[in-house]
């Protein structure tokens, strides 16, 4: 394990928050895309 020294909290917080935001954005993008695809396909099978 690498030693982050006395700034460990700072570095980990920066990485933590950023990755959280990125994962949230990716998750939202993928989920919305899947939802849009499902809605469109449901509409096609109904029609």
């Amino acid at each position, binding site marked *: 394990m690498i030693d982050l020294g006395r*700034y460990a909290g700072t570095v980990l917080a*920066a990485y933590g928050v950023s990755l959280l935001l990125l994962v949230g954005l990716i998750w939202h993008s993928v989920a919305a895309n899947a939802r849009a695809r499902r809605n469109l396909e449901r509409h096609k099978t109904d029609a």
Partner: protein
Amino acid sequence: MSLWEYANPAKFMRTTDRVLPWLVVSAAICVTGGLVWGFLTPDDYRQGSTVKIVFLHVPAALMAINIWVMMLVASLIWIIRRHHVSALAAKAAAPIGAVMTLIALITGAIWGQPMWGTWWEWDPRLTSFLILFLFYVGYIALWSAIEDPDSAADLTGVVCLVGSVFALLSRYAVLFWNQGLHQGASLSVQSGERMAATYRHPLYLSMIGFGLLFLALVVIRTRTEIRKRRLAALQAQEARA
């Protein structure tokens, strides 16, 4: 075949269907590679381990600006050539840009805490990013407020144009307002002391990764918008018939 044919929704869907997997894989490799490599770099003699934040902060800040520029170009293409996919791509890019701006702001604040001794400093660069974030928020809010997609595309396009002028204007106004204690641009060639290669190479990889990540996300989100529009269009046609 002309480049403009990619602006056809069906063509866009077909093309991105093939490109997207490669984009996703390469973005994942570059982002993970850049960040892990960056995390393993030795500490800086002045900044200690906080130097590792640069691999998030700088690529995010770079993308925050570039995404706005991409939205401006996409809006111009929509306004001048009326390519519908272009307007939707601008809409799809905005939330990504907002998140990138937020990452740049938050990592900047966290970084600044041990360096400057305060969480928030009204430093010109941080302030400019805060203003940029406000523009992103206004742009996204306008898209979601207008029901008619044609009006929404036109109005957000005009707002993006005017916003670009004022974002630039605000940047210079803020420089005038406070000269700031932010360090110079980390990679700028003019500033005599260049960043050591130990940091530069993972940073480049991280920047490429963020760029690819943006491309992958904007393609996915544009596809989402196209599907939503297609559903709405089919429903509108049935309501009319």
